[in-house]
């Protein structure tokens, strides 16, 4: 194997993905706050109608997908920094991936009920 595991470009994709997904979530957050604050006071009908719209469902799904990738890179970085025993770190990383997949699945279930 000629693969170089150290060097300046290893991990560039995750680094970039974390920033791009961060920007996507920032845009979504601003849109959501504007929509919530500019509309009528929130009651069940308003709340329900907001998430019944197709664009809102897709935007929220994009947000959730961005969040999943963003959180994975971030939590993995933290585990690499603080958890040194390989077995424990691997177990925690698997656990984190399962949690993220669970979050994503639940979000889709909530959006398309």
């Amino acid at each position, binding site marked *: 194997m000629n693969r170089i595991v150290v060097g300046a470009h290893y991990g560039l994709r995750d680094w970039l993905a974390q920033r791009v997904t961060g920007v996507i979530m920032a845009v979504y957050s601003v849109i959501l706050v504007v929509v919530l604050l500019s509309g009528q006071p929130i*009651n*069940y009908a308003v709340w329900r109608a907001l*998430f019944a719209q197709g664009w809102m469902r897709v935007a929220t799904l994009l947000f959730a997908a961005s969040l999943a990738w963003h959180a994975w890179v971030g939590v993995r970085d*933290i585990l690499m920094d603080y958890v040194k025993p390989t077995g424990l770190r691997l177990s925690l990383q698997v656990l984190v991936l399962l949690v993220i997949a669970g979050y994503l699945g639940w979000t889709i279930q909530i959006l398309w009920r």
Partner: protein
Amino acid sequence: MANATATKRRPKYLSLQAILFEIRLPLAGWISILHRVSGVLLFVSGIWLLFLLDRSLSSAAGFASIQHYLSFSLVKLSLLVLVWAYCHHLCAGIRFVLLDLHKGVDKASARRSSIVVLIVSLALTAYFGAKLW
């Protein structure tokens, strides 16, 4: 080559006592570690936030139950902490992206942007907190 870093033992001066009482972080360091702490907080709280979203969208009765649930001070306070975590994570994140783009890297502007992040995220938290109460 790949093993060189693994076998070389370097002295460590970090201890819990050093982390807690001896190392004094500059403001930018606080922004950074709070970015990390707020990220973990948001990740762990995802299950609770999804529960709130799930119930509130499930039915009129579910929405009402969440409204009642959110009237408890402890629940509001928990949500406010998460609102702060979100605002801080967002503001600090924007700062880090700008730093990545080599904007505001010199000491004076980096310090200034740290102060801005701290103040703006607290102001946003106060604003949303006022809406919550």
